[in-house]
């Protein structure tokens, strides 16, 4: 075996090794990108799902198929906090309200409830109708923040003693994927600048 052959082998090993490293790096990068892209898509889909349900419900604050059961809809919000809201509406059965008043509560659970997920910030966003929880589906919600405004458009400070003063609200929701590559989590954010439930002030 001559020196040239040895040189060829060493050269091939170095070049092959470099190619292998590039391949590993490529694989790693591709996996990371695939994870992030998929995570972003999932987060977006989760956000859209959360928002659609939430918009449907919030627009029905103070609504009842039998409108005489809520004589004063301005009193429909029972509790208003920065990450919790309780109101009356008519949501059941889903899609075809029956004219009976339902009490609906939205609130954000603690992060400790989802300690099993890699994301330390995700929480359960609860939707409770008539004290019966729909169960926890982790959609990666990390923020559910409500800001309330009075009839003159001024922000109502917390704690809100009289929820009847609420005329409109701002809703902020952030969703992240529940597990991220290298602890990097995709995040999507949605904000409804002013949601005014029509029944609140229609009489």
């Amino acid at each position, binding site marked *: 075996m001559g020196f040239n052959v040895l040189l060829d082998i060493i050269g091939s090993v170095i070049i092959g090794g470099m190619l292998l490293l590039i391949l590993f790096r490529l694989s790693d990068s591709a996996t990371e990108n695939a994870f992030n892209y998929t995570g972003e898509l999932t987060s977006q*889909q989760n956000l859209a799902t959360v928002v659609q349900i939430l918009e449907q419900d919030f*627009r029905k604050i103070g609504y009842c198929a039998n409108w*005489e059961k809520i004589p004063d809809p301005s009193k429909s919000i029972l509790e208003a906090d920065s990450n919790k809201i309780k109101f009356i509406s008519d949501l059941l059965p889903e899609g075809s309200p029956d004219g009976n008043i339902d009490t609906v509560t939205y609130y954000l659970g603690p992060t400790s409830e989802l300690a099993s997920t890699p994301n330390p910030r995700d929480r359960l966003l609860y939707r409770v109708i008539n004290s019966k929880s729909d169960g926890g589906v982790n959609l990666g919600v990390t923020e559910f923040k409500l800001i309330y405004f009075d009839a003159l458009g001024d922000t109502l400070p917390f704690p809100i003693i009289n929820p009847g003063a609420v005329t409109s609200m701002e809703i902020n929701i952030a969703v992240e994927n529940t597990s991220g590559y290298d602890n990097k989590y995709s995040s999507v954010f949605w904000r409804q600048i002013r949601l005014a439930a029509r029944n609140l002030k229609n009489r």
Partner: protein
Amino acid sequence: MTGKASLLLILGFSLIFLVFGHNFASLTTRGVDNMVDYYDETVAHDIAVSAANMAANEFFLDNNWNAGFPTTSYNGGTFKVNFSIVDAFRKVYRITSVGNFNNITSNVEITLKPSSFSKFAYFSMSEGGNIWWTGNDTVWGPFHTQDHIRAFQHPTFMGKASSFKSLIYKNNEKSDKPNFNGGYASGVNLPLPTDGVSNLEAAAASGGFVFNKADYTKAKTVYLTFAGDSIKYKFSSTGKETTVLGKTLAPNGVIFAPDVTLRIKGTVKGQYSIGASGNMANQGSVILDDDIVYNSDPRTNPNSKDMLGIVAENDVVIADNAANNSSISIFASIYCENGGFTAENYSSRPVSGDINLYGGIIHKTRGAVGTFDSKTGKTLSGFAKKYRYDDRFLLTSPPSFPGTGMFEIVSWYE
């Protein structure tokens, strides 16, 4: 050999890149699709809401409008609006709007009913020049004035409040801003009608009872006493009293005294509206001689059906007499088409306790019921006000009580 290996290497890498590139592009496309779906739903919903608003506007402008809208192109999509009758007797109508955008549909349903003045806890055309709503004042139901709302030290309006003219602060917003706990809208034009009293008279003539002017004495006064199931009336303070079963006297619950002063008191059992008209002095006013209360108090019996509307062409006045000098209880919705709710000799009568009003006041001009020390708030003459709104008037009203001539949205489903 080396050339083939390089070619295979390049082809292999290209294939890998193509697969990854395709997947990433697919993920991005699906992400965009997801937001487009949400956008489409939002636009479909906005189209449905816009069409519902347009239809409601048509109906508010012309209460006989019932045509709906055929399928119409709008904002890149279409809408269709149907008009239907929910309850012909009560004139409850429904507007159903369907918006469509990119094959996604969204529905909005609006239910409307006629609006009555009795729904107001307080209504005025004029706030009497320069009277301020103060921090001691709480209005417990819907409020409207065609005048300014003048606010001093955070008055509280528990129901929906509206005014035609603007909100005025005594000093500034920080020190005077009202607590609008049921919302507030300015620029709402809702004047008192000029035919509210005459419509009541017509209702009394058709199934109710109208006093015969020929029975009046020179004093032109009718004394009416509610006595449970019965109603007593006479035409002078010393005259002979006639007692009739209320349902026999006025089957539809409407009793009217034209061109006269109507003096009332008693305990109301059932649902009645009483009215007085007249343009001469002391005519067209209703004088409260003593308490006028319900047989069954709705505050303790939510199932109480007792209800009273007092409709005057001019004023509704609390008489200055012994019976009223130690508080008065008034259970009724009070309507004064050209006058106001006031107390006789309010500035010279003795301190007379409280006006315990359970109902509402709808009047042209805000009247006075007493005077008070502006520093201590202590009543110097007349009455202190204890007004509470009868929540039942949000849904129902005394028989033939003057309507606003307009409809209101009672339910909005989307």
